[in-house]
C-alpha cells in the first residue's frame, strides 16, 4: 500500500483554493528523490484554471519525510511563479526547506554563464570537421618543422637532452616491443600464406606462396604492421607521457628553466623510434616469412629449405631496403604525432586519454596516407 501511494504523485500533491484568489499547494506523505518527482507543470495547469489565483501558498501539515526531491519540485514552482510575478508565501513550509530554498536562491543566476546548446546542421558539421582536419595537418607539419630544426641542432651538437632518457626510450620501443611484433607479424605471414595457398593450390603452384609472402612482407606488410603496432603501443605512450607532464606542469617547469621541451622530450623519442623501427621491420619481415614457411610445411608439404630458397629467389634487396626506408619514415610520423598530441593535451586527466587516442588515430591515418604516397612514388621510380 505504501509503495502504491508513493508511486502516485497525485497523493503527494493536491490543490485547493482557500479563497478565490489564493492557490494552496498541499504537500503530503514522503518526498524522496528515489520515488520520482511530480512535474511542477501540474502547478502551471492550476494557475491557468479560472479563477486565476493571485497568490500561492502551501499546506505542509501532512508532509512526512523529505529530501532534495521536494526542493527540486519547489524550485520549479518558484521559477514558474517568478516568471508570472505571482507572490508566493513560503512560510507554511518546514524551516529546513525554507532555509535551503533561500540558499539556492541567494545568488542570482549569472547572465551568460549558461552554455547554449549549439544547433549545427550536417553540412556545417562536415565543413567544421574538414577545417579541423586541415588545421591538424597544418599543426603536424609545423611541429615536424620544429623537430627538424631540433635535429639540425643535434647534428651540430647543440641539442640538450639526457642520454639516459634516450636509452630508456630505445629499450621501450625496441626490445620491449619484440614479443608483440613477433606474434602479430608471424600471424600476418600465416594469413597471407593461407590466402595464397587456397588459390595457388588450384593451379598446382603452391610453391609460389613463398614468393607471395616474401614479396608482400618485405615491400609493404612488414613496415606497415610494425608501424601500426608501434602507433598503438609507443605513439599512445608518448602522448600519454607528455600529456600528463603537461597536466602536472612538468613541461612548464622545463620551459621556465630555459630548457626546450622539444629538445629535451621530443628529440630522444623521435630519434629512438626512427632508429628502432627499421630494425623491428627487418625482424618483422623474417617473422612473416617464418609464418609462411610454417603454413608451407604443415599444409602444403613444402620443406622449410625449399621454401626459404624460393623466398630468397623472389625477394630483392631493393624491396627489403624500400620496406626499411618506409618503416623509418613511419617511425618519424608516429613519434611526431604522439609527441604533438601530448603537447596539445588539455589540463585534465580525461584530456590525457583523449591525447593518447588522438595520437593513435593521427599516427595510423598519416602512416596509411604515406603508404599510399610511397606506392605511387615507387611505382613511378620503377622499384
Amino acid at each position, binding site marked *: 500500500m505504501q509503495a502504491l501511494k508513493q508511486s502516485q504523485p497525485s497523493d503527494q500533491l493536491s490543490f485547493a483554493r482557500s479563497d478565490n484568489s489564493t492557490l494552496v499547494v498541499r504537500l503530503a506523505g514522503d518526498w524522496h528523490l528515489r520515488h520520482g518527482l511530480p512535474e511542477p507543470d501540474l502547478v502551471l495547469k492550476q494557475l491557468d484554471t479560472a479563477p486565476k489565483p493571485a497568490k500561492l501558498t502551501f499546506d505542509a501539515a501532512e508532509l512526512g519525510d523529505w529530501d532534495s526531491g521536494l526542493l527540486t519540485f519547489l524550485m520549479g514552482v518558484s521559477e514558474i511563479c517568478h516568471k508570472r510575478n505571482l507572490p508566493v508565501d513560503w512560510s507554511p513550509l518546514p524551516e529546513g526547506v525554507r532555509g535551503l530554498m533561500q*540558499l539556492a536562491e*541567494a*545568488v542570482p543566476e549569472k547572465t551568460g554563464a549558461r552554455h547554449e546548446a549549439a544547433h549545427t546542421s550536417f553540412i556545417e558539421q562536415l565543413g567544421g570537421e574538414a577545417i579541423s582536419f586541415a588545421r591538424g595537418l597544418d599543426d603536424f607539419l609545423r611541429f615536424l618543422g620544429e623537430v627538424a630544426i631540433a635535429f639540425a641542432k643535434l647534428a651540430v*651538437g*647543440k*641539442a*640538450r*637532452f*639526457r*642520454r639516459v*632518457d634516450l636509452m*630508456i626510450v630505445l629499450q621501450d620501443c625496441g626490445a620491449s616491443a619484440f614479443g608483440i611484433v613477433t606474434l602479430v607479424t608471424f600471424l600476418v605471414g600465416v594469413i597471407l600464406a593461407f590466402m595464397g595457398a587456397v588459390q595457388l593450390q588450384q593451379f598446382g603452384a603452391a610453391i609460389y606462396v613463398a614468393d607471395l609472402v616474401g614479396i608482400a612482407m618485405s615491400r609493404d606488410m612488414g613496415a606497415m604492421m610494425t608501424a601500426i603496432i608501434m602507433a598503438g603501443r609507443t605513439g599512445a605512450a608518448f602522448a600519454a607521457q607528455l600529456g600528463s*607532464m603537461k597536466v*602536472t*606542469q*612538468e613541461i*612548464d*617547469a*622545463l*620551459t*621556465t*628553466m*630555459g*630548457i*626546450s621541451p622539444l629538445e629535451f622530450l621530443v628529440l630522444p623519442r623521435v630519434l629512438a623510434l626512427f632508429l628502432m623501427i627499421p630494425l623491428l621491420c627487418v625482424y618483422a619481415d623474417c617473422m612473416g616469412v617464418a609464418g609462411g614457411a610454417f603454413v608451407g610445411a604443415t599444409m602444403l608439404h613444402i620443406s622449410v629449405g625449399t621454401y626459404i630458397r624460393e623466398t630468397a629467389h623472389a625477394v630483392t634487396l631493393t624491396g627489403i631496403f624500400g620496406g626499411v626506408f618506409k618503416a623509418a619514415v613511419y617511425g618519424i610520423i608516429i613519434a611526431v604525432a604522439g609527441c604533438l598530441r601530448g603537447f596539445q593535451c588539455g589540463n585534465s586527466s580525461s584530456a590525457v586519454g583523449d591525447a593518447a587516442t588522438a595520437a593513435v588515430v593521427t599516427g595510423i591515418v598519416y602512416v596509411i596516407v604515406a603508404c599510399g604516397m610511397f606506392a605511387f612514388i615507387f611505382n613511378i621510380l620503377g622499384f
Partner: protein
Amino acid sequence: MATTPSPIKSSDGKPVSVTKFPKDGPPPITVKNLTMAFGNFVLMKDLNFTVNHSDIFIIMGGSGSGKSTLLRHMLGLIEPAKGEVFYGDFNFTRGEPLEREEMLRHFGVLYQGGALWSSMTLAENVGLPLGEFTDLSDAEIREVAALKLALVGLKGFEGYYPSQISGGMQKRAGLARAIALDPEILFFDEPSAGLDPISSRLLDDLILELRDNLGATIVVVTHELASIFAIGNNSVFLDAESRTMIAHGDPKDLLAHSTDHRVQTFLTRGGEDAEKSARNHG
C-alpha cells in the same frame, strides 16, 4: 649532449649569479598595461605595477580572478593580448627567444604541485639545471643538489622519486630545484595550497629566509591571508568582477587604510559581513 656556454658560471666553475638586477638599477619587474585574454574573453586588463628589489610581492585576489594566469604571463608561458613585462631594462614580452631563454635562467619557479620530473630522483631533479647550465662535474652536481635539498629539510632523500614522497615534501623539493641556480627572482604559485597550517607556516619562514639570505626578489601568488600578512611587503589585488587590479601596495597598509570594500572584505575574511560575503562568493 653538449652544453652551450652559459653566463651563469665563474672561472672556478661554481654557479655564481652575475647580478642581472643591480640594487641601483631599474626595478627588477615592471608590468605595463598588461591585458590577459583568451580569444575574445578578457580576463584582466590594464595591469600596471612594479616589483622592487628584495620585495616579497603578493599577487592576491579571489578564486578565478586570474592570479596564476598573471604569473604564467609574467613567465612568458602565455603571451599577453596587450602590454609588456619588463625585467630590469629588458622587454621580456618583445624579446628574442634566445634572450628570453637566457633571462629565464635567472628565475626560479615553484609550481603549485611541485611539478617535479617524475622519471628522475630528487637529486637528479635539482641537478638537471646545474648539469645544463654550469660546468660542474657530476660529483660536484651531486654535492650541490644535496646541499639544496638539505636547505629545504630533505637531507637524505636524494635518491627518492617524486612519487615516493608526500605532497608537502614534493613542494619543498620543487623549491630546492627552483633555487638550484641561485636565482635572483623567485616565483611561487600557491605555495601553501594543500599544505597543513604548520607546513605552510614553515614554508613561509623558508621564503623569508631565502629573501634575506639570497637577496632574491620574490613573487608569490596566494590567497592565504596568514601568509599574505606574514611575508608580503608589496602586493597587487586582482578583482574578478571589474576585471582589473583595484589595489597595489603593502598588504598591511591596505588593511589599515584601503577604503575599497572589496579589498577590506577580502583582507578581513568577510569581516562583519562574513555570512553575506560567504554566500555571495562561496
